């Protein structure tokens, strides 16, 4: 579904990515792990056309994304839910969801509001509240809900657990799994390797802009290197 080959990205003189290759199969959850600054977010930003790679190829459903605009990528069903949630703080919850469906003009938008509210009943209670006043967990729910409003085929999730209490992280990961069960492929960037390996099918570990390790999530959970570096013993 998504195939990245030999991707390199530079920010000025800084090499953020050096020849990254990865794949996401339809209906799977793929985790992208690594420390701060390893290039995880940059990979997502390259896919959603926020940064222009220097080299390499990004293909989605057999088509190259590199000549397309950010808006085209959204229309193809690749939705990037950015780090730090980045909800629109002055919009109400409902307006945030509405803007998520910006590229859609079909009749099903209304029904999808209800779908998002089924995933996140708390958002329904707060639909007319100003989003900036929500708690961190609610903002993350809103950010995911907003992405769902675009009807993603592939959801790029950047650090959904960042700064959230453990019980909320559990809820959110449960919902990510549920979204995936209903057919959306997910590329999940996480620092919380433990949680990410639990729900993903396959995982890549980035270090200094290179893929250092990859394998099925079950395999990686057993890997000594992963245990030492990311799972704490």
């Amino acid at each position: 579904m998504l195939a990245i080959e030999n991707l390199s990205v530079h920010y000025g003189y800084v090499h953020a990515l050096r020849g990254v290759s990865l794949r996401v199969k339809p209906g799977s959850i793929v985790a992208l792990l690594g420390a701060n600054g390893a290039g995880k977010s940059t990979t997502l930003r390259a896919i959603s056309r926020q940064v222009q790679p220097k080299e390499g190829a990004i293909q989605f459903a057999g088509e190259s994304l590199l000549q397309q605009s950010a808006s085209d990528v959204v229309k193809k069903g690749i939705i990037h839910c950015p780090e730090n949630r980045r909800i629109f703080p002055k919009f109400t919850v409902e307006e945030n969801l509405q803007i998520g469906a910006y590229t859609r003009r079909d009749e099903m938008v209304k029904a999808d509001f209800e779908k998002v509210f089924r995933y996140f009943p708390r958002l329904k209670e707060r639909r007319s509240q100003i989003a900036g006043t929500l708690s961190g967990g609610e903002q993350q729910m809103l950010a995911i809900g907003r992405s769902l409003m675009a009807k993603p085929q592939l959801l790029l999730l950047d650090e959904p657990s960042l700064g959230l209490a453990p019980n909320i992280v559990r809820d959110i990961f449960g919902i990510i799994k549920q979204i995936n069960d209903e057919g959306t492929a997910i590329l999940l960037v996480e620092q919380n390797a433990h949680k990410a390996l639990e729900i993903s099918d396959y995982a890549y570990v980035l270090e200094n802009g290179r893929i250092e390790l990859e394998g099925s999530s079950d395999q990686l959970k057993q890997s000594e290197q992963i245990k030492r570096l990311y799972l704490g013993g």
Partner: protein
Amino acid sequence: MLLQTIASGLTIGCIYGLAALGLVLIYKTTDVVNFAQGEMAMLTTFVSYILLQRYGLPYYAAFLLALLFAAVLGTVIQRFIMKPVQRAPLLNQLVLTLALYMVIRGVAGIIWGYVPVGYPEAISGEPLQLGQVYIKPNEIFVLCVSLLLMGVFYVLFQYTRTGLAMRAAAQDMQTSELMGIKVTGIFTWTWAIGAVLGGVAGMLIAPITFLDPNMMQEIAILAFAAAVLGGFVSLPGAVAGGLCIGVLENLIATYVSAELKAPFVFLLIVLILYVRPNGLFGVSQARKV
């Protein structure tokens, strides 16, 4: 007398409000303060004058065609002048709008000269009496056009898909792109609408100021003042700021001195900002990191 002064002040305040609205809209969405706003309005007013005088079009046709010109002018400026420097530091973009201000004024001066000419009112006629207040039909026209525009604009901004996208881009450009919004397209819309609002202000004020390349000098400064008074990011604030300044200015001109009206208005603005540093409708810029 007092009521009369306030009523006339409100009419002119509407015009300031429209001009301020155009400024605030562009600033809010694109972060650029458009110093050329007044000169773009002046250019639009000249175009309407040519349509009226040389081609003998009726007022309403000239008015609407001139607004079409303003929209195209705003679009062209955004596309060909502002867009190429969109990623430059904001200060550089500001300097570019200052350059535009000088270029437009200079070119207008070369083409049309600096001798002020009269500009017709939309509706002529004897003042109507409403209680103790006399209102000229043209003032009613100014009020109606301003209120109508503000209303249309409010609906566009608050209830349409493009309006939603404009408000989103004003908050967070990058994330707006992730929603599939073409931010450059939104910027173009913003400049077009901003130019139209300014153009309306220009054509409405021209019967009072007369038409020449310097006609918007004072109006543009008062529009800035109105925008600042309203908080510079608030659209209702811009309108309220415009109305306040219109009324204040008229009160001072009537009861103190016509020469001192501008200094007094600015003195009052300084006092208001002393009490409310973010303007009447502004919000403090404290941000969570």
